[in-house]
């Protein structure tokens, strides 16, 4: 299963990818929306984990653009914000919404549920 992680905090997203790789997922990462769109155009991803607040485009806007490239792609949102507004938006737009910091097991569980693994 191939996962695309997008977050503007490079240290966070690169280490998260490495930990998912240790758990058997193929995880690629990007720190910008442009980088994520480029990757999605060149490779097929089953799922994208997107930060809600990012420079230039929000995670919600990025989701819409990724869906145009790959309509089958599933989504999970992550954010440092814990507002109700963000939660409503995240759950409406994606299958799950996780607040940072989180345990890797929580993310893995949501990935497995989203992809019916």
């Amino acid at each position: 299963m191939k996962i695309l992680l997008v977050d503007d905090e490079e240290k966070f997203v690169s280490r998260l990818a490495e930990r998912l790789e240790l758990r058997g997922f193929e995880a690629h990462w990007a720190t910008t929306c442009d980088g994520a769109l480029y990757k999605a155009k060149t490779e097929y991803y089953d799922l994208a984990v997107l930060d809600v607040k990012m420079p230039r485009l929000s995670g919600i806007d990025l989701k819409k653009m990724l869906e145009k490239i790959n309509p089958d792609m599933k989504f999970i949102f992550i954010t440092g914000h814990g507002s109700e507004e963000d939660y409503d938006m995240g759950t409406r737009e994606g299958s799950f919404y996780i607040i940072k910091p989180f345990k890797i097991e929580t993310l893995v569980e949501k990935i497995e549920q989203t992809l019916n693994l």
Partner: protein
Amino acid sequence: MEKEIGKICAEGFSFFGMTNRLISHELKNILAIISETLGLIDELMELSETGMELEPGKLRSLSESVIEEVERANSIIRNMNTFAHSVDEFIREVDISQTVTLMTEFSQLDSALKNTKLRLMDCGSCVIYTSPFFLEKLIYHVIDFSLRGAGHEKEIRVSFDSDDNGIRIIFSGIASNIIGEFPTKKEDLLAKVLSAKVSLDTTAGELTIALPKRIGESFIQNLLPED
């Protein structure tokens, strides 16, 4: 007068709420980095116990990045503390360089989200007698508007100068075709509180806050606590 006091108090509360949101967001990001880094270190150690070679260079780099994040968090908390103290006294001597630095640092997340650099020029030191809290709020509003209306260079430069009459804080790099009215009623009220003047020069691409060396008669004096 009472209506204005009510408005300015409401603005003050909302400013405190907004800065708390910004700070908690940043701290959560830092905690997430620390959590992932320590989690990875732990997993690499576990793997080394099963025979996988452990790279000392990688471990060092991971542990150094935890230290960096702790320093970043410390800097944010230090700013938060400075900001919290700005309501200790409604009117006092204020170092403009420190105040502008504090507000530019608070606006870094916004600056990143708007893909625009916020650069503070070195202008030395300058002290005026004013309201630190409402000055911070006015500077924050001006930065927010400047970031939304940045010119093609995508860089807002913040500088200040002073003469016998007072000081000017200048925000340059604003697009000449900037959309939106500024200052609005909110900034006008803050400017009134501070005996200041906010002006936008679209030809020069500059927004200026002009402040007197000593705040004039202001209704916020009624907000001073009674001993």
